[in-house]
C-alpha cells in the first residue's frame, strides 16, 4: 500500500470514529470552556488588560485542551493489539504517524474555531492588528503542538503512568513554540510591532520538528 492511501484510510477511520463518538472534541471543548471561565474569575480583566493577557490565556487553554485529545490518540490502537498488527504489516510507519497528526490537527483547529468567539465575548477582545495574522499563528502554532504532541503521546503510551507522562515531556520541548504563539498573538492584538519574527520562528520550529518526528517515528513504533 502506498504512503498516501494508508494515511488517507487511517485518517478517515479516525475522523469517522470521532464523528460517531465525539469523545475528543467534547472533552476538549468542555475543558477549555472551564479554563476560560476560571481564568476570567482569577484575573477579572478590563478590555485593555485582557488584550495584554489574552495571548497567554488562549494558548494555555488550547495547550491543556490539546493534551486531552493527544492522550487518546494511541490508546485506541493499543486495544486489540492494533499497533502490533501495524508493526508487522508492510505499511509505512510514517503514513500512520502523519494520519494521526492530521487528525489531531483537525480536532484542535476545530476546537480553536469554536472557542475563539467565546474568548472574544468573555474577554471583550478587539484586535488592533490585522485579524488574518491570528489565523496564521493559530495554524502554525497548532501544528507545532500537535506534531510533537502526537509523537510524545506515542512515547508516553509505553510508560507506566501514561496520561501524566505526556505533558511532562511535551511542555518543556514546546516552550519556544508557546512563547512564539503567545507573543505573536499579543503583538497582533495590541498592534504594537509586527509578529514577523515569531511567525518565522514557528515555521522553523514546525519544519525542524516535523522532520525529527518523521525520522524517529519508525524507531519508536518498533521499540521493544
Amino acid at each position, binding site marked *: 500500500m502506498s504512503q498516501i492511501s494508508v494515511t488517507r484510510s487511517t485518517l478517515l477511520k479516525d475522523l469517522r470514529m470521532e464523528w460517531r463518538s465525539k469523545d475528543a472534541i467534547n472533552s476538549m471543548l468542555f475543558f477549555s470552556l472551564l479554563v476560560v471561565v476560571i481564568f476570567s474569575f482569577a484575573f477579572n480583566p478590563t478590555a485593555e488588560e485582557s488584550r495584554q493577557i489574552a495571548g497567554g490565556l488562549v494558548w494555555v487553554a488550547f495547550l491543556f485542551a490539546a493534551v486531552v485529545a493527544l492522550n487518546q490518540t494511541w490508546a485506541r490502537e493499543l486495544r486489540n493489539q492494533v499497533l502490533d498488527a501495524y508493526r508487522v504489516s508492510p505499511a509505512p510507519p510514517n503514513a500512520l504517524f502523519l494520519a494521526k497528526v492530521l487528525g489531531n490537527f483537525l480536532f484542535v483547529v476545530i476546537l480553536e474555531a469554536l472557542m475563539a468567539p467565546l474568548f472574544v465575548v468573555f474577554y471583550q477582545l478587539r484586535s488592533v492588528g490585522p485579524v488574518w495574522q491570528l489565523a496564521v499563528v493559530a495554524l502554525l502554532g497548532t501544528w507545532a503542538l500537535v506534531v510533537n504532541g502526537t509523537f510524545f503521546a506515542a512515547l508516553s503510551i509505553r510508560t507506566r503512568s501514561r496520561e501524566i507522562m505526556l505533558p511532562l515531556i511535551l511542555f518543556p520541548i514546546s516552550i519556544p513554540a508557546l512563547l512564539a504563539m503567545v507573543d505573536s498573538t499579543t503583538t497582533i492584538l495590541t498592534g504594537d510591532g509586527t509578529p514577523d519574527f515569531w511567525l518565522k520562528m514557528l515555521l522553523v520550529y514546525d519544519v*525542524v520538528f516535523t522532520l525529527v518526528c518523521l525520522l524517529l517515528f519508525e524507531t519508536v513504533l518498533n521499540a521493544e
Partner: protein
Amino acid sequence: MKSLSIAFVIFTLALLGFSTYQALVVAPTEQTMGEVQRIFYYHVPSAWVAGLCFAVNFLASVVYLWKRSLNADAVAAASAEVGVVFCTIVLITGPIWARPVWGIWWTWDARLTTTLVLWLIYVSYLVLRRFAAGGQTQVLAAALAIFGFVDVPIVYMSIRWFRTQHPQPVMGGGQNSGLAPEMLHAFLWNLLAFTFVGICFIVARYRLQLMENKVEAAHAQLALQGGAR
C-alpha cells in the same frame, strides 16, 4: 583498571584543591562586586560541564539508536544525570550572585531562561527514563534526547528575541568585557578542575548503570526460570 581510576580520582581532587586555592585566595577581589564575585569561578565552569554533559548525552543517544549498544545508552543516562546536577548548581549559584549584585534573585533574561528550560528538558528526560517500562526505555529516552538537543538552539534564539536587554557575556562580549589576568588564571584552573570532576562523575555513574543493567537482567532471568522472587 581499578588503580588507574583511583589515581584519576586523586589527581582530580588535587586539581580541585589547587583551583579552589586559586579562586578563593590567589585571585584578587573584584572592585565593585566584592567577594561575591568569586562564585563566578564555580558558576561558569559548572555551566560548561553541564553543556558538555548534554552534548555527550546527545552523541551517546545517536550512537545508541545507530548501534543499539547498551554501553552507549549507559553513557547517555550517566551524562544526563550529571548534567542535570551541574545545571542545578548553575541555577543555584546564579541567584546567590545576582541578589547582591543586581538586587534581584531572578530575571527572565535570555541566558537564565535558556538554562532553566534546558534544565526542565533534561529533568523530563530523567522522568521518562524512570517511568518507561522494560526494554523500551533506551529507545524512548534516546528519541527524547534528540528532541531536547534540537530544541536548545531554538529556545535560545526565541528567548534572545523575547528579552533583548540581556547582559553582555563577560568574556568575548562587548568592548568592556574581559578579565584581569589573575582572575582569568583562576577561572581557567577551575574550568579544568570541574571538567575532570564531571568526567569522574560520568564514569562512576556509567559503571553504576552497567551494574544496574546486569542486576535487572539477572532478575529477568530469574523470573523466566520461574524463580522464587
